[in-house]
Structures are given as structure tokens and as C-alpha cells.
């Protein structure tokens, strides 16, 4: 405590300097007088008495200095001094300051902006009270011999209903454990007919999250215990305002969700939108699952992964205790299924909390952060280079300070303070820009990541993490660009500098040139990485725009509806489908109608596995269930065998058609017709082989794919494809009316098949645009770096060039001399950059999931030779141009002027 008291007084001492000075002077003066009087009394002469007293005191100024050091805080004083001096220097060079601050602000701003979004998605805790006490629980499992059978919804790490109950009932580490099933789509019936996205939630949902509904109440035990006893729902504030006009009397009244009447018992507080990135518009008890999703019984299926778990930790319980406590329960569950081994993982409760999602997010975010980090690095190199050039002008100042006795460390500190000031200004400017633009950037990124989906609910307001990130980045930036010049310029040769001679006269220009060359090499390397990445992405984009997906998209329309959710059973679904087929086929302008369980290039492909008799392994395949008209409608040619017959289609006969590549892969060099494959213990005969078509994944047709007939059991999940050209082809309006005539309460999506390409092309287009902008920026910044280096080299070698020319060197020799010196670092940087990008491209393409990387490269190799030849060539041309312009000055050197120079 005494130390703090002293520190405080010393801090205060900083501001009362004058009074302190007077007091010390007075005290020391009185000390001297007392001593002198004593000495006189002892019989010394006046001079002797004064001399002896001064000796004993050890010098008045020295004593004052000692007291001064103690009365204030010297460290702080020096810092303030440095800051004052630094500010003065920056204001004296407004041009330098503006260029440096703006360049760096751009870099820091972009970095902070990207981080803000990552932070909102995966670091910021859920906006609920005491969110730090919340933990998400996820599981991975394997079996000692054989594979685990799970029916996965949304996520493999989710839990089944019975597993949730085991954890909720038996754990002793949580005050409560909630379960939720996200992304439940429901049609709100009645006058506000619209699709809603919501969640099913356990009874304790609002209690565990400590988010009591703003109006009404949450769920009661009775409403959750028995299935469908009394259906209730809590609405989000947004839906309540938009669909029900914020009418409080809605409480207690029934609304219709997926044709099930449910009673509104509560309205969630504004701003609360669930625990997933996609906002929830309603919450219904888990037990309502069978009513909201007809035909599925997830509650009774112990192998169904559909529930995310979030627990509120008991006070004083550690993360390890949680894992241990839950592990016991997991072991009990494992015993029911011998050989199964479950591993639990816990994480803090953020919007993206599932491990795989976080991994994908952080990898993608990491790539982007890396790219903008490169820009910042290039900017740093330029500012560094500027500082080095300026250091030449400050040699004399530095030398004077060194001669006056300043230590080198003190000088470095002074120079670093200046750099940090520049960085801080840039950091503040950049952060302000990024905070303002984060929301806009978010919308932009969202349109890349998930166009046409529900808007994401990310909070991108700056918080402590973001501020800390911005500050840390700023400090690192300041030190990165400031340290080298500070070390460099504080090592002045005293005598040379004091004599006013500069290194132009040839003392030791090597090391300084070396530093700047190294900076340029680093810039070129960073720039090369970005340019190559942009080159690869542009090639991918070109491929995406020109690719032939292998099927017809023109004039094909797809109709989708959710019969399952709308409460249809197999019979009614089949009746509806049959009537629809007839009515649509009868519409004017319709050429053909086909049924398919998956619309080409849509995101709704299903996966199954099959085995081949006589072989061991199970083969995973994406599949589509299609009617015989599907292939002719989409112009997918049958190359061997035959199409399904109508009879096979009506009965759902065990036949299958494979694409060429799949057939070739499974039976290389053999005729696949007549071979069989076994799916769910039924043997399917291969009756036909069709041309490859990229129906599930644009740019990739190497995956195993299969077509099954759209039999009677599948009718409930089928969509319709309609082809029709000409002026009287049916419009979306006509098609919707046709469906509405049969079932007015069925919500229908009508899309043009060609529009399905957009989600595939748009991300590539936007990401290519983004990377093109980044790399142009990098190119401009690097060109400035090269330009600066060459100008500098020329200005320092004017005299030498003059002598060479006087001795008979012609302009060409001089040009080559200068260019060679400039282009060496460029070449080294280029080679480094190419190697670096090749390594990165390889790492990214092997670690990122295929459906992310594939959406940008579309089958282009990450080491695509076209990009790797053209881009370095282009960069080299720019570098030569950037060095040629200042190098021309060298050719115009007049030997006479040069020799008299200085």
C-alpha cells in the first residue's frame, strides 16, 4: 500500500514541478547555510567553510537531480518528452505523416473489420445474462469394430432425445441443461401465410438461458412431458411485430404452424434470436416434433442426432469437472451399445459452437485475415522504406544527440515512439472505418457465404476483444515498420555525420541499401502471393462461367414444396403429385414434366451407402430419385442400356442408373449393365448408364452418384421439373396458381433452373472481385516500393554514374547497371512469393472441406500452370516498369553536373 501512496504522490509530482524545484532549492540552501555556520564556529575561514560544506553535500545540482528523480517519475517524463517531440516531428512533415497514416489505416482497418466479423460469429458469447457460465456440449463417437448407425440431422455431433434426457437427468455439474433442434421450417397458416424458421426447445430452454419471455411465459412441465398434450409456442419479437402488429392480445390465442394449431404463450425479449447464427422466429417444445414434422418420429429414435445441448455450469465447477461428470453418463450410454466409444467436447456458447463449423469458419477467416495481413505488411514495408529515406536526412540530428551523450537505446526509444505515434493515428483511423463499415461488410460477406438464405444474426459492434485486437495490431504494426529504421539510423558514424558528409560520398552504403532491398523483396513476395491467389480465383471464376454442367438449364423451371411439413401422408402425397403432373402437363407451352427428389445444383441432395456383392467396402453415394422423363427433359443422354420404364417407376422397382464416371470407377473396363448393388439389403440391378452431369456439385463430377426410380414411397419428397419454351411457357405465377388450386395452404417455391447456378457463380465472382481489389492494392503499394528503391539508388549513385559516363559508359550500360541492382530483390521476392503461394494453395486445398474450396476453383488445380506462369510474368513487367521510370533519370545524368554535385 505504501508503494501505491508513493507512486501516486510521484504521479502528482509531475504536475507541480515549479513548486517542487523552489522547495528543493530552498531546502538545500538552508542545509548549506547551517553547515557553513557550523564550520565557521569550528574556526574555518568563510571560503573554507563554504567549500567543505559543498564537498560534503556532493554538489548542489547533483543533489537536486537525485531529488528530482525521486519526486517525479522519470520514465513517464521521458515518454512524455518523446511524445511531444514525436508529435512535433510528425507535424513538421505533414506529407510523410499523411501518406504513412493513410496507408497503414487501410491495412489496419481491413484487418480489424475482418476480425470484427469473426469475433461476432465465433468469439462473442451469446447475448444472454452470465453467458460465461454457459457451455455447449458436443459428441463424437466411433465403434471398435464396425460403424455406428446414426441418422444425422443438421450435425453429427448432436444428440438424440434419449441421450439428452440421460445427460439432463443424471448430471451434477449443470444447474440446467437445455436441448434445442435448430432450423425447423414451419408454415404459418391463416391470414399471414408465410414460412418461418424456428427451433424446437426443451422445457427449461428459457430458464437455462436466463432469458424470460418479455410477455407471457415460457414452457411448463406439463406442456413438455407427454407428446402433443397441449401445443404451445413462444414467438420472437420480430415475428410478433411483423406478422401480428405487436398485438399483446395474441397471448393465449391459437395460431397455425404446419397445420397444427398452437397457442402463443410468450413473446421473447427483443434482440433474443436463439443460439444459432440464423435467427429463430419461434420456439416450440421438443415434444411438438411429431406434429410439426409429420411422418418423422425423432423423439423415439435413439440413433437420431438432432439436438444441440447447452448447459449452465454450477458455481465453482471447473471445465474438467464438467467433462468428467458428463463422461460418466457417456460411459453408461456406451454400455447400451457394446463397442461404442463416445468422446464429449465442451465449448463456450457462441453463435458458431459446433467444432466443425468453427474449424471451417476459422480456416476461411484465417485465409482472409492472411490476405489482408499481407496488405498491411506491404504497407509497413513502404512506411519503413520512407523512414529509412528520412533517416538519411536526420543523420545530423542523430549524430548531435549521440555526441551530446544520449544513449543509443534512448535514441531508439525516441524513434520508436514516433513510429508508434504514426501507428496509433493509423490504428484509430482504421478502427473507426472498420467499426462503421463492419455491418456493411457483414451483409456483403453474407451474400457470398449463403446467398438467398435466412439473414444471419451476427453482432458486429466492437467489443473488448475487437479493441484489444486493434490495439495489439497497431502496436505490432508500429514496431514492425519502426524497428528496422530505428536500429539503422541510431547507428550513425559520428565523425562522418558531424562533418556533414553523407554516405553519398561512398562510405558504407551497403547495409542501408541492403535493408531497403530486403524490404522490397518482402513486398514483392507478399504481393506475389496475393496476385497468384487472385489469378487462381479468376481462373476458377472463368471456369464457373464457361463450364458445361452437362445438362440443360435453359427454360427449365423447378417447383418445390414441403409435403411432409404440410401434413401429407404417402397416399395423399401421391394423389397430389399425380393431379399436379396432369394439370401442369396440360398447361399451354409445357413440353415435359419430370419428378425428382433433388433439383440439380440445389442443396438438397441425399446421401446413402451401398455395397457391391463380393466386395467388402460400403460406398457412399449422393442420389436422386427421378421419373423416366427426367433424363430427356434435362438432355442427359443415355449412353448404355436403357431408361427406367413407367412400370418400374410406378412400382419403385429395384433398378438403378449410374453416370459414366461412377460406372467406370466401380467396374473399370467392364460392362456395368446387369451388375447389382445392394442398398439396405435390397439388390438393385443396373439398367442404364448416362452421360456425366454435374447435377450435385458444379465443377465436380468425380463423386459417386446414382439415380433411382421415383417410386410410390418417395412421392412425398419429390419436386417437379417443367420444361417449356416460347412466349406462352407457364410463368411462376401460373404454376403457383395451379398448385394453390389443389391445396391453397401449401407454400411453393418456383425457381428457374439457370438461377440455381447463381449461388455457385456468385461466391466465386465476389471473392474473385475481393481478391482482385486486394491484389491491385498490393500491386500499387509494391510498385511504389520498387519505384522508391530505384529512385533512392539512383540519387545516391549520381556521382558514380557521372564518373562512369565521363569515362565513356553509354546510357544503356548505366540503365542496365541500375536496373540490375533494383531487380535482384524483386527476383528474390518473386521466387519466395511463388514458393509461398504454392505451399499455401496446397495446404488450403487439402485442409478446407471440398465444398468450400471447390466452390471457388471449380476443378482448377491449386498449382494451375497458367496462373503460375502468367502472374509472375505480369508482376515482373510491372516491376520493370516501376524501376524503369526512375532509372531513366540515371541515363540523363550530366557528367559535369554530377561531378560538381556536393
Amino acid at each position, binding site marked *: 500500500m*505504501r*508503494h501505491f*501512496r*508513493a507512486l501516486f*504522490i*510521484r504521479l502528482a509530482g509531475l504536475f507541480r514541478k515549479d513548486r517542487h524545484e523552489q*522547495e*528543493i532549492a*530552498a*531546502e*538545500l540552501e*538552508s*542545509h548549506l*547555510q*547551517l*553547515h557553513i*555556520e*557550523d564550520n565557521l564556529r569550528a574556526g574555518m575561514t568563510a571560503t573554507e567553510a563554504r567549500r567543505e560544506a559543498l564537498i*560534503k*553535500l*556532493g*554538489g548542489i545540482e*547533483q*543533489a537536486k537531480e*537525485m*531529488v528530482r*528523480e*525521486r*519526486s517525479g517519475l522519470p520514465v513517464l517524463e521521458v515518454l512524455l518528452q518523446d511524445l511531444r517531440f514525436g508529435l512535433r516531428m510528425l507535424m513538421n512533415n505533414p506529407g510523410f505523416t499523411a501518406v504513412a497514416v493513410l496507408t497503414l489505416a487501410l491495412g489496419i482497418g481491413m484487418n480489424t473489420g475482418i476480425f470484427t466479423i469473426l469475433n461476432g460469429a465465433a468469439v462473442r458469447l451469446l447475448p444472454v445474462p452470465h453467458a460465461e457460465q454457459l457451455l455447449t456440449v458436443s459428441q463424437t463417437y466411433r465403434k471398435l469394430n464396425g460403424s455406428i448407425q446414426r441418422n444425422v440431422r443438421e450435425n453429427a455431433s448432436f444428440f438424440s432425445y434419449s441421450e439428452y434426457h440421460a445427460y439432463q437427468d443424471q448430471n451434477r455439474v449443470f444447474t440446467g441443461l437445455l436441448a434445442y433442434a435448430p432450423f425447423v421450417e414451419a408454415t404459418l397458416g391463416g391470414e399471414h401465410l408465410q414460412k418461418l424458421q424456428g427451433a424446437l426447445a426443451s422445457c427449461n430452454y428459457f430458464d437455462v438461458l436466463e432469458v424470460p419471455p418479455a410477455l407471457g411465459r415460457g414452457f411448463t412441465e406439463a406442456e413438455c412431458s407427454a407428446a402433443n398434450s397441449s401445443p404451445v409456442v413462444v414467438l420472437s419479437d420480430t415475428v410478433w411485430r411483423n406478422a401480428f402488429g405487436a398485438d399483446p392480445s395474441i397471448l393465449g390465442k391459437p395460431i397455425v404452424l404446419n397445420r397444427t394449431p398452437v397457442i402463443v404463450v410468450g413473446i421473447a425479449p427483443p434482440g433474443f434470436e436463439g443460439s444459432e447464427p440464423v435467427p429463430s422466429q419461434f420456439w416450440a417444445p421438443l415434444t411438438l416434433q411429431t406434429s410439426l414434422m409429420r411422418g418423422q418420429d425423432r423423439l423415439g429414435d435413439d440413433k437420431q442426432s438432432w439436438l444441440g445441448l447447452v448447459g449452465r455450469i454450477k458455481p465453482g465447477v471447473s471445465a474438467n469437472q464438467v467433462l468428467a461428470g458428463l463422461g460418466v453418463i457417456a460411459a453408461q450410454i456406451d454400455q447400451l451399445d457394446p463397442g461404442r466409444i463416445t468422446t464429449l467436447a465442451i465449448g463456450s456458447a457462441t453463435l458458431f459452437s459446433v467444432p466443425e463449423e468453427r474449424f471451417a469458419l476459422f480456416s476461411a477467416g484465417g485465409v482472409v485475415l492472411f490476405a489482408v495481413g499481407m496488405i498491411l505488411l506491404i504497407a509497413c514495408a513502404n512506411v519503413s522504406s520512407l523512414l529509412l529515406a528520412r533517416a538519411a536526412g536526420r543523420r545530423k540530428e542523430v549524430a548531435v544527440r549521440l555526441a551530446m551523450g544520449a544513449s543509443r537505446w534512448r535514441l531508439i526509444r525516441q524513434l520508436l515512439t514516433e513510429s508508434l505515434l504514426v501507428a496509433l493515428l493509423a490504428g484509430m483511423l482504421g478502427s473507426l472505418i472498420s467499426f462503421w463499415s463492419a455491418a456493411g461488410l457483414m451483409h456483403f460477406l453474407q451474400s457470398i457465404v449463403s446467398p438467398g438464405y435466412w439473414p444471419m444474426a451476427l453482432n458486429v459492434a466492437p467489443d473488448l476483444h475487437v479493441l484489444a485486437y486493434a490495439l495489439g495490431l497497431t502496436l505490432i504494426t508500429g514496431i514492425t515498420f519502426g524497428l528496422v529504421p530505428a536500429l539503422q539510423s541510431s547507428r550513425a558514424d559520428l565523425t562522418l555525420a558531424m562533418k556533414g558528409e553523407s554516405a553519398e560520398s561512398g562510405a558504407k552504403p551497403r547495409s542501408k541499401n541492403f535493408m531497403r532491398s530486403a524490404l522490397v523483396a518482402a513486398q514483392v513476395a507478399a504481393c506475389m502471393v496475393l496476385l497468384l491467389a487472385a489469378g487462381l480465383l479468376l481462373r476458377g471464376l472463368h471456369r464457373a462461367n464457361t463450364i458445361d454442367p452437362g445438362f440443360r438449364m435453359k427454360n427449365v423451371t423447378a417447383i418445390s414444396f414441403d409435403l411432409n411439413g404440410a401434413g401429407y401422408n404417402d397416399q395423399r402425397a401421391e394423389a397430389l403429385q399425380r393431379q399436379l403432373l396432369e394439370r401442369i402437363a396440360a398447361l399451354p407451352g409445357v413440353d415435359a414434366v419430370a419428378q425428382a427428389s433433388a433439383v440439380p445444383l440445389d442443396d438438397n441432395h441425399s446421401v446413402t451407402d451401398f455395397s457391391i456383392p463380393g466386395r467388402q467396402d460400403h460406398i457412399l453415394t449422393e442420389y436422386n430419385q427421378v421419373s423416366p422423363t427426367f433424363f430427356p427433359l434435362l438432355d442427359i443422354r443415355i449412353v448404355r442400356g436403357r431408361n427406367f420404364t413407367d412400370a418400374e417407376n410406378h412400382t419403385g422397382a429395384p433398378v438403378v442408373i449410374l453416370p459414366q464416371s461412377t460406372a467406370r470407377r466401380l467396374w473399370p473396363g467392364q460392362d456395368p449393365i446387369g451388375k447389382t448393388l445392394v442398398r439396405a439389403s435390397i439388390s438393385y440391378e443396373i439398367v442404364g448408364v448416362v452421360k456425366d452431369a454435374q447435377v450435385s456439385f458444379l465443377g465436380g463430377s468425380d463423386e459417386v452418384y446414382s439415380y433411382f426410380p421415383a417410386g410410390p414411397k418417395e412421392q412425398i419428397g419429390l419436386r417437379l421439373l417443367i420444361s417449356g419454351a416460347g412466349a406462352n411457357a407457364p410463368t411462376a405465377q401460373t404454376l403457383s396458381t395451379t398448385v394453390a388450386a389443389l391445396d391453397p395452404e401449401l407454400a411453393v417455391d418456383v425457381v428457374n433452373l439457370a438461377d440455381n447456378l447463381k449461388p455457385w457463380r456468385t461466391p466465386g465472382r465476389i471473392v474473385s472481385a475481393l481478391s482482385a481489389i486486394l491484389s491491385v492494392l498490393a500491386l500499387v503499394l509494391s510498385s511504389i516500393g520498387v519505384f522508391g528503391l530505384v529512385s533512392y539508388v539512383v540519387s545516391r549513385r549520381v556521382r558514380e554514374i557521372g564518373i562512369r559516363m565521363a569515362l565513356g559508359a553509354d546510357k544503356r550500360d548505366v540503365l542496365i547497371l541500375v536496373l540490375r541492382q533494383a531487380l535482384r530483390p524483386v527476383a528474390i521476392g518473386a521466387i519466395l512469393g511463388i514458393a509461398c503461394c504454392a505451399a499455401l494453395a496446397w495446404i488450403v486445398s487439402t485442409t478446407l472441406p471440398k465444398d468450400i474450396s471447390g466452390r471457388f476453383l471449380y476443378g482448377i488445380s491449386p498449382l494451375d500452370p497458367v496462373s503460375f506462369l502468367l502472374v509472375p510474368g505480369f508482376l515482373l513487367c510491372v516491376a520493370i516498369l516501376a524501376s524503369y521510370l526512375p532509372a531513366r533519370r540515371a541515363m540523363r545524368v550530366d557528367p559535369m553536373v554530377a561531378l560538381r554535385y556536393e
Partner: protein
Amino acid sequence: MGDKKDVWQGTLALMVLKTLQALGPLHGYGIARRIEQTSGDLLAVNYGTLYPALLKLEQEGYISSEWGTSDNNRKAKYYKLTRAGRKQLDKEAREWEQTTEILARFLAPGKESA
């Protein structure tokens, strides 16, 4: 001056506190003289080093100061012990005695070595 010992870092504060306890309020010159005399002229106090030490003690609240007049009518800054200072003096003196006692036992020709 050759034989005189410099004052150890840290012990000067203890000496100042003890002096003020023994003599009551005193100015800087008086404290310096007293320390020199008490040590039997074995210690060479550079009077200048006394002032930062006094300032430190004052900042820590162990002593307080005020301007007064000396016996021969000269203005001087007088220091006196505060309550916290008295307590600190007790504590430090005890610790110091303990330390010296321990060291003395080590340095004395012990029975073990005999």
C-alpha cells in the same frame, strides 16, 4: 576517508527514522550530522543522498515535514516521525536485530567447528 564505509542501501532509511525518534523533529542537516556522529565517524554520509531518502520516506507517509526556524534563527525544513513511521521503525529494527543475530551466530567461532 579511506576507512569510512558507505551507507548501505536501505539502512539509511532506518537510521533516519531512529534519529527522528531519538531527537524529535529535525532538519536534514541535523539528521546527517547525527548519523555521522552516532556512527563514530566510521560512516561517510554524502549529505546529498539523504534528501532523496527523506523524500521517499515522506512519500510513503513515514515522516512529515514543515518549515520552521532553527536555534540560530535560520529557516529550515523540519522532519518528524508519523505514527506509521513509528510502527515501521519498530518493525524494521526488530527485523534488523534478527538478521544481525543470525549473522553473528554464523560468524562467531562456533562450538561445532571447534
